[in-house]
């Protein structure tokens, strides 16, 4: 789960990492109130779970109250790179003297935690890594290791923080690590970690997290009751939300062939097969969704899945691909027929069964004599057939 900037700031602030004062606001009235409290000039920042919002016009400086409201009214209705803006953060404007970049993330390859940092921030870390790879430091924190203030100091020096910043940087690194660990994060990124203050007054200079990105490990939700406050019902896809209620993995892909299968890999493979068939047939038909019914699915689970997929108005045909391991194809067949009894406005279904109780499942489907149920021998054939049926149904309309 990715957090909005204003939520990520909360988690950093909980650990005592300095952030500029900021207030989340969702309408002009709230923005005016927030801006008055923050003072002027202030920054109006789009809250959206995608990068590059600055270039897209999602971050603006406001000099007074009217300006703040004006800027917020420009930003609030925006959709940035396909993501609707959920609100704005009204934050103190800071005088930036220097920018660092620091992130902690799960390192899949080394199977521990990765600290990526550069003392020459300001642009994108990926761009810096390309042009000046020596300027980006990649350090590790071991899963069984003891990352303490000494280790953090050594790391701050290695990253190349200016001498005057090392002590505060070490404190921030240590607190970032605590934030990462205590919150079961998969990413904690501060970009920029800025040196702010009056250039002529040494005592006023300090490090501050001007922007932050945090992702949390969904698998750890069971030990974080507080995460309920991050639930984001408004911006979610309605089909994805419904599938989630049934405990199903669903991803909306907006094509024409609904895809249901057991096991994430087999469903991904089925999506690829449908796309391939659409290309080969010259129709450009694409998969409408990813839906994994999981292992050992019952007839009820199958029926609920089919009902969700068929309720998508873009869906013209459905491809059901089951390799029965624990899952019984017989149960799946019962679920398909159960769902078809309930659903008005039938769409063609192509079924491919293999493995556990495949013959029994196919016999149940055959006995139903339902004209909308088609059977294929292999997943390749099923993908071809479902793509063809979807293209036909599209033309008929």
């Amino acid at each position, binding site marked *: 789960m990715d957090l909005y900037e204003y939520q990520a700031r909360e988690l950093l602030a909980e650990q005592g990492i300095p952030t500029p004062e900021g207030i989340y606001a969702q309408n002009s009235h709230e923005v005016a109130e927030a801006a008055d409290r923050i003072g002027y000039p202030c920054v109006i920042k789009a809250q959206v779970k995608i990068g590059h919002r600055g270039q897209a016009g999602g971050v603006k400086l406001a000099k007074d109250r009217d300006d703040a409201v004006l800027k917020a009214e420009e930003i609030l209705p925006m959709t940035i790179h396909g993501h609707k803006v959920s609100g704005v953060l009204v934050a103190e404007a800071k005088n930036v003297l220097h920018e660092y970049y620091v992130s902690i993330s*799960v390192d*899949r*390859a080394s*199977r*521990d*935690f990765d600290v990526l940092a550069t003392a020459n921030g300001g642009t994108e870390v*990926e761009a810096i890594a390309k042009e000046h790879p020596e300027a980006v430091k990649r350090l590790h924190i*071991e*899963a*069984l290791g003891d990352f303490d203030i000494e280790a953090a100091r050594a790391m701050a020096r290695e990253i190349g923080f200016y001498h005057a910043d090392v002590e505060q940087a070490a404190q921030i690194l240590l607190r970032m690590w605590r934030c990462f*660990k205590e919150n*079961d994060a*998969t990413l904690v990124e501060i970009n920029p970690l800025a040196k702010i203050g009056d250039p002529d007054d040494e005592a006023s200079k300090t490090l501050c997290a001007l922007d932050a990105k945090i992702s949390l*490990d*969904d*698998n*750890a939700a*069971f*030990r974080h009751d507080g995460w309920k406050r991050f639930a984001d019902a408004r911006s979610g896809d309605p089909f994805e939300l419904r599938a989630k209620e049934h405990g199903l*993995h669903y*991803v909306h*892909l907006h094509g024409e062939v609904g895809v249901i*299968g*057991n*096991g*994430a*890999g*087999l*469903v*991904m*493979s089925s*999506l*690829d*097969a*449908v*796309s*391939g068939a659409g290309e080969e047939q010259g129709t450009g038909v*694409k*998969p409408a969704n*990813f839906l*994994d019914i999981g*292992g050992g699915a019952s007839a009820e689970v199958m029926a609920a899945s089919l009902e969700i997929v068929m309720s998508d108005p873009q869906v013209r045909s459905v491809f059901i691909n089951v*390799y*029965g*391991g*624990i899952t019984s194809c017989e149960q799946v067949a019962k679920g398909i027929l159960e769902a078809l009894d309930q659903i008005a406005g039938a769409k063609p279904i192509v079924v491919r069964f*293999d*493995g*556990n109780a495949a013959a029994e499942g196919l016999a149940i489907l055959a006995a139903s004599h339902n004209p909308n149920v088609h059977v294929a021998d*292999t*997943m*390749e054939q099923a993908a071809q057939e479902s793509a063809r049926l979807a293209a036909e149904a599209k033309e008929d309309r």
Partner: protein
Amino acid sequence: MTLFIEDGAPVIVQGMTGHQGMTHTARMLKAGTNIVGGVNARKAGLDVTFPAARDGEDATIHVFADCAEAKAVTGAVASVVFVPPRFAKDAVVEAIEAGITLIVVITEGIPVADSAYFVELAQRRGARIIGPNCPGLLTLPSTPEAKGCNLGIIPDGIVGRGPLGLVSKSGTLTYQLMGELSDIGFTACLGAGGDPIVGTTLVEALQAFEADETTKAVVMIGEIGGSAEQDAAAWAAEHMTKPVVAYIAGFTAPEGKQMGHAGAIVSGGKGTAQDKKEALEKVGIRVGRTPGQTAAFMRETLAGLEG
């Protein structure tokens, strides 16, 4: 020795008395796996009978309080873990501390920090972890009299012994390719798991198959997310003498969306199926467009070896 375990080696099941544990222990026993105990502190001392599960006879399996006791009494070398996510870390750590050397973690939904912890602990103690979030390890017996090991949830009876090795990030795609190549047969099928951090990577599986004299060629099934396939390509190019044929799932997966498996996600343009395919093909590993084509490539490869 086939892959990581001897034929007929003694095995315990952690979480045996749960629903998943009961179902799959019965299956594993029927497949000939030498299961010698279950572990559950709250049900210690119980004897569980699995009807007609061992060569048609009833199998009675004792439940031990912990892995240390189970190992001391039975000499178990391997454990299969069906413990729910919130207790999984403690269960795996317990197995490592007890000196179990092969731990197959089936559980899906373990926090990645917990997996990072027990994987690193296992590395330090010289134990091997397979998974988590995997279908397990199936080894086929190396002689007609011997019994292989079915550790996990891979269906029994799809394949027999043959010259192929298989490693996969996905469960059902494992079964799919096993089915496609069932006439040829396998030495072992290993589910590496679909989580971001796993105990046995694709590279480590290739290393094991390379070292196993009876394996002649390897099927590798990857999917979007991370760089395990690229790492495998790089390792194979340097060290692998046996042919590898690969399949990658998820070409149509959109950026930033988790496709079922916790680890199956393209982020920041990294971990795409296309990148993986290119990395593999660059070192001469053929990548099938579909599971069917992958199986066909493997047949051609084997024919080439014989010719």
